[in-house]
């Protein structure tokens, strides 16, 4: 399988979309290499707005541009967009439902050794709690490209979350991203794994491994955390009775929280939430942290086997 950087996939997609949508403009807060908005800058310098290290101002300017009929795409890290500029996102953008796309890189613990200040394990919970907001977390380059176009075509605020590293390809030609719809990556009725972001690779690997032992684990990629695809969660609860969620985020309020909220309404499934266990993430390489936080293929398998014993 091949790997590809989702930041680069988004940046390339945005350049293509820039040709298609003349009203698309990009804003950057001094991270043009990290976010790869440099690609848009080179292609469309006249539609590129560098605001410096001032994320709050960036969100407000984006609101004004959207009010003028532009499709502004802001670029910064997840921690800064969701926390430093949180209230600007809420009040200047989401409240009047403005057509701003908030693209964030270095989500979860992917900033790794840069340290906990640069990790974002709270952003899904924060953004999910803001009315009118759509929260998208693609898992591989193919899903990212499709999600980029879907976000630009969608009329309203959207938060698009990707990591810093490379993501393994999982999507095949038959998989398709649609806002608000989960993607069924593997069938099965013994249990369900629901993933978001690039941990969908670990989810699929865990399912494939267990399949060798005759256990059929359904895998759903929740490329959109909000609005959450209620139907597939309810089906999974009814049909499989056990759901493991996995995300590069605090287990409080993220994908696991969203899935548990829906599943609890019918009370037919146990839900186990894998993620950062409500503590500040340790510092190390992203791979090291994911190991420390029990977010590996093996951790998923262990969780599933506790339920799917027979």
């Amino acid at each position, binding site marked *: 399988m091949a790997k590809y950087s989702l930041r680069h996939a988004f940046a390339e997609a945005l350049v293509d979309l820039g040709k298609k949508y003349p009203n698309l403009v990009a804003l950057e807060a001094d991270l043009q290499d990290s976010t790869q908005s440099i690609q848009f800058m080179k292609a469309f310098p006249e539609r590129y707005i560098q605001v410096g290290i001032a994320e709050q101002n960036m969100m*407000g300017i984006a609101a004004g541009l959207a009010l003028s009929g532009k499709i*502004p795409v802001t670029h910064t890290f997840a921690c800064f967009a969701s926390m430093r500029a949180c209230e600007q996102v809420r009040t*200047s953008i989401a409240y009047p439902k403005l057509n701003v796309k908030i693209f964030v890189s270095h989500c979860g613990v992917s900033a790794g050794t840069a340290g906990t200040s640069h990790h974002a394990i709270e952003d899904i919970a924060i953004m999910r709690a803001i009315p009118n907001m759509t929260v998208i977390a693609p898992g591989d380059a193919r899903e990212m490209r499709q999600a980029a176009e879907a976000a630009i075509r969608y009329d309203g605020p959207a938060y698009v979350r990707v990591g810093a590293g490379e993501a393994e390809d999982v999507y095949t030609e038959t998989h398709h991203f649609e806002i608000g719809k989960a993607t069924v990556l593997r069938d099965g009725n013994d249990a369900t794994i629901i993933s978001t972001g690039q941990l969908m690779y670990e989810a699929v690997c865990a399912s494939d491994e267990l399949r060798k032992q005759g256990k059929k684990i359904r895998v759903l990629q929740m490329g959109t955390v909000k609005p959450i695809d209620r139907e597939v969660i309810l089906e999974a609860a009814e049909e499989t009775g056990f759901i493991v969620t996995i995300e590069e985020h605090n287990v409080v309020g993220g994908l696991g929280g969203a899935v548990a909220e829906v599943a609890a309404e019918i009370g037919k499934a146990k839900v186990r939430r894998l993620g950062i266990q409500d503590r500040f993430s340790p510092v190390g390489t992203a791979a090291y942290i994911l190991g420390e936080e029990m977010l590996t293929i093996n951790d998923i398998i262990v969780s599933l086997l506790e339920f799917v014993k027979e």
Partner: protein
Amino acid sequence: MAQCYDIEYLRELARQSRIDVIKMLEAAKSGHPGGSLSEIEILVALYGHVMKHDNDNINMKDRDRFVLSKGHGIPGLYAVMANLDYWPREDLLSLRTVNSRFQGHPDRVRLPGLEASTGSLGQGLSIAIGYALASKLDNDAYRVYCVIGDGESQEGQIWEAALSAPKFKLDNLVCILDYNKGQIDGFVKDVMPLEPIADKWKAFGWHVIKVDGHDIDELIRAFEEAASIKGKPTFILADTVKGKGVSFMEGLIDWHGVAPNKEEAEQALKELGA
């Protein structure tokens, strides 16, 4: 080059708007009289003469844009726009009631004609910069006006915005400070001093003009001067009086966010010649 205008008409517009502010706040039993009254001449100069706008065509493409960053002053804008036939004056009395279009802070989704939803202080100038950038990108001729408060200027985002507008050479942008010198907890100079304000904005790269914020002629001349400045945005420091026009409110912090009761409103309306 200066367009002529009827100063008596504009003064009457200001007087009538003040009357409406008092009536609205009394009806709502809450709201912000101090800052709604201090900004009136600024709004009258803009909406009554300077700005290109059309109440019959609120989405007119080349209309000038106005952002009230100090969103709590919205009763003043509701009143001025009502007197220019954007909406019926009697509707203003629904201020702050359930499902009213006239919310305590501006909501452009509920009330089309407003250009921005504000209320959380410090955010409007950035939105105005977005409008001004879009005007430049599209080679449109419209201009953008933004009123900020002095207390509001304690927010860091104001200074992020102040730093950025000169970089983008936004000579189509005018930021007006309603310098009424009061905020909820006291005088601005005591709560968190801002002076020297003009020097700060000059240092940030703005063309700065000081005016008497209750002198409509002076305000109009300042807006005309701003329109002639190329390559940089203009900051108008409008010296105002909190609660202007009502003797017992003028200059008093207590009237920042308290509505007049029936007797107080009657007294105020009498002073305003209602």
